[in-house]
């Protein structure tokens, strides 16, 4: 059994890579494009990771740490040895199962969904690459390894969003996702550098030891925490970098389920959970508020969206905000619990959306759907199950995790008091909104009368390869998977495995935030539990009821209502104008700067170059003239003078002896004159 912890994780990591390599190089030669190959490997991998999780519960955590490289003695930093390896602890074990499970189901689902695509093999190869990167991100025990795989998942996400790169929208979306993520990753890298400069270690344990020893504290610790969180803001699509996720829905729907709902976007939450114990009170405050703002903004946007995938995308952002907020308020286990439950029911929602889109022949607008319950019963019931889970209805996994988070936010309010009560208030409001927009989606899609008769008539239930993953995922949204008590998860295996850790800075306070010792904190949560449960039940019930009143029984004229709050409605429909805002702030200003640089380059730099050139030219011209006139002139003058003298003296050379005699006489006379007379 030991080998399950010591060796198997590496096997689990490399299997998807193997799938990627085989499919990339030989995929086209395999029968059926090699889809069965990747899918089978992933299901084997799922088996292995379940076995690892089981071994973990039996044997406890394990870390393999080997010397990676050695920089030798360094004047500034001392002896630099870098370690790398993998770790198996509660977070990793659970994430391994979640990632492999969803990846395996998505593989199976895609076999049918992507059936007639021309790039079928490449699609499965990319899925393998993504799964490999994601597993590496989870397993790495060093923040640098995590960063490496972090970028790798970014690349695979880019490749899969832009999978249909022959169309302009996916291209744009892929670029947008990649660039927006870069912004967050820059912060992440800075955070890593701060940690390296102060602590000098990259492994998580090394970092925690460094923080405990006080090597990194005060403002720098807060800065490091916030910068690391920047990475999570990008990857987990938190405000203000959330804009890429809705656009990422241009990718194939199973990819949205795998990457942009269940696993990759949860990487940010995973990162925050991983470094939770070293986050300072102020960093946690920022994290909490970013989380709650994100959750609130995206919930308001989700209410008015009409594209089935866009609604789900905004609900994903909202739920991610929930998880971030949960970890921010200190409820580490609950946030992570919500990550896991959300992964299953959101993957289920996306895959059912995929099934609907497949059945409706690529219609995504919910205004064209309706009444699909009769045509697609399995899809409907699985969707219903997942919707109940996300809305927090009892007997679902979502209820368990959401309820604990709400309790934690209430505890947060009671511990820190004052305006911090805004967090639980918003959290409850968001829970109600979530229930409302999810049931709005459900009603408009599956209930009522069909709005597009032609499409409706051609609609059909999806084949088994698609419905089986749906049913399994829907079953995993059931409370029994995580705990046998439908109202309190704390006794279930999950929360027993993923225990709340003792915070390294317990007992310290930030500006508006107290980090309590674990026991005291649990006390507060325990007190809040009952209130939270009742309130959340009431609020999600209200949300669901409102949705039915509006869209099913139609007691309220929705058209009239939206008309009366038109500005608010448009504000939400246009996603709070974030894209337009960024267009002005980021794109326009960058373009302006580029234009200015271009002008500078064109006029000033080129001008200087051209000026230098023309100066050189005129100098050369002058030089040429000098050469031509003065130097050549002198030479010619010499020549000319010699010639002229020649011409003159030539006259004397007449060849007549009489002339010579005359000159002779003349010469003698001259000499006589000179010597005698003078």
């Amino acid at each position, binding site marked *: 059994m030991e080998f399950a912890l010591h060796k198997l994780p590496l096997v689990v990591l490399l299997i998807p890579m193997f799938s990627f390599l085989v499919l990339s190089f030989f995929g086209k030669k395999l029968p059926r494009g090699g889809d069965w190959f990747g899918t089978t490997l992933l299901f084997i991998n799922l088996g292995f990771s379940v076995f690892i999780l089981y071994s973990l519960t039996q044997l406890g955590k394990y870390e393999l740490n080997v010397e990676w490289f050695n920089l030798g003695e360094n004047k500034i930093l001392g002896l630099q040895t870098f370690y790398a390896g993998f770790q198996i602890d509660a977070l990793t074990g659970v994430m391994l199962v979640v990632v492999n499970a969803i990846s395996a189901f998505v593989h199976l689902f895609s076999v049918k969904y992507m059936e007639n695509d021309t790039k079928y093999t490449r699609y499965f190869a990319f899925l393998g690459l993504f799964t490999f990167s994601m597993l590496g991100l989870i397993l790495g025990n060093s923040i640098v390894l995590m960063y490496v795989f972090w970028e790798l998942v970014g690349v695979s996400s880019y490749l899969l969003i832009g999978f249909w790169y022959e169309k302009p929208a996916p291209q744009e979306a892929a670029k947008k996702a990649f660039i927006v993520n870069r912004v967050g990753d820059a912060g992440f890298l800075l955070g890593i550098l701060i940690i390296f400069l102060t602590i000098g270690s990259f492994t998580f344990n090394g970092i925690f030891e460094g923080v405990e020893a006080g090597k990194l504290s005060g403002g720098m610790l807060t800065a490091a925490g916030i910068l690391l969180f920047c990475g999570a803001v990008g990857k987990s699509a938190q405000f203000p970098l959330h804009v890429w996720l809705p656009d990422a829905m241009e990718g194939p729907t199973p990819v949205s389920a795998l990457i942009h709902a269940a696993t990759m976007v949860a990487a940010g939450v995973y990162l925050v959970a991983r470094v939770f114990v070293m986050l300072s009170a102020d960093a946690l405050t920022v994290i909490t508020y970013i989380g709650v703002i994100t959750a609130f903004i995206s919930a308001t946007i989700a209410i008015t969206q009409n594209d089935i995938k866009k609604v789900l995308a905004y609900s994903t952002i909202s739920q991610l905000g929930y998880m971030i907020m949960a970890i921010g308020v200190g409820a580490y286990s609950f946030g992570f619990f919500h990550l896991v439950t959300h992964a299953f029911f959101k993957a289920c929602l996306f895959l059912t959306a995929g099934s609907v889109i497949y059945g409706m022949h690529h219609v995504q607008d919910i205004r064209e759907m309706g009444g699909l319950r009769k045509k697609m019963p399995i899809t409907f019931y699985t969707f219903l199950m997942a919707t109940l889970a996300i809305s927090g209805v009892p007997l679902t996994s979502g209820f368990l995790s959401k309820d604990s988070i709400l309790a934690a936010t209430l505890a947060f309010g009671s511990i820190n008091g004052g305006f911090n009560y805004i967090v639980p208030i918003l959290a409850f409001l968001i829970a109600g909104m979530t229930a409302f927009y999810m049931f709005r989606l459900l009603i408009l899609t599956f209930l009522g009368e069909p709005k597009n008769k032609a499409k409706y008539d051609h609609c059909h239930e999806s084949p088994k390869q698609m419905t089986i993953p749906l049913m399994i995922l829907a079953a995993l949204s059931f409370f029994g998977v995580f705990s046998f008590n439908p109202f309190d998860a704390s006794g279930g295996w999950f929360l027993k495995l993923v225990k709340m850790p003792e915070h390294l800075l317990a007992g310290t306070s930030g500006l508006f935030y107290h980090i309590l010792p674990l026991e005291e904190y649990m006390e507060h949560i325990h007190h809040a539990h009952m209130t939270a449960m009742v309130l959340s039940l009431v609020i999600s019930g209200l949300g669901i009821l409102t949705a039915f009143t509006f869209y099913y029984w139609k007691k309220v004229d929705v058209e009239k209502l939206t008309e009366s709050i038109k500005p608010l409605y448009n504000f939400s429909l246009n996603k709070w104008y974030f894209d337009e805002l960024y267009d002005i702030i980021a794109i326009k200003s960058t373009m302006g700067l580029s234009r200015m640089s271009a002008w500078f380059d064109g006029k000033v730099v080129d001008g200087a170059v051209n000026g230098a050139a023309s100066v050189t030219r005129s100098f050369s011209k002058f030089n040429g003239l000098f050469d031509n006139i003065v130097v050549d002139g002198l030479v010619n003058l010499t020549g000319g003078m010699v010639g002229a003298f020649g011409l003159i003296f030539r006259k004397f050379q007449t*060849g007549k002896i*009489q002339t010579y005699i005359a000159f002779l006489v003349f010469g003698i006379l001259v000499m006589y004159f000179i010597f005698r007379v003078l």
Partner: protein
Amino acid sequence: MEIGLNHYLVLSAILFGLGLFAMITRRNAILVLMGIELILNAANINLVAFSHFGGMGVDGQVLTIFVMILAVAEAAVALGIVLNLYNNFATVDVDEANTMKD
């Protein structure tokens, strides 16, 4: 008026000048030769005059005899040349005999 050395010298100078003038200006080869004779004779007068007034006995006269003999020899050779010139160019004009020029 006593005839003195100066008178001989002036006569000699005039004769020399005339000879030189003839030698330079005449085109006819014969006339040029005649100019040369005049110059030689001018020198002879000088020799005789200096000899007489210088108290040197007959040295000047002897040298003059030599010069006259030399002049005869010269005239013989020169007239041969002129004859040849006339045979080749059908003229005795010295300016025409210019084939070695250029």
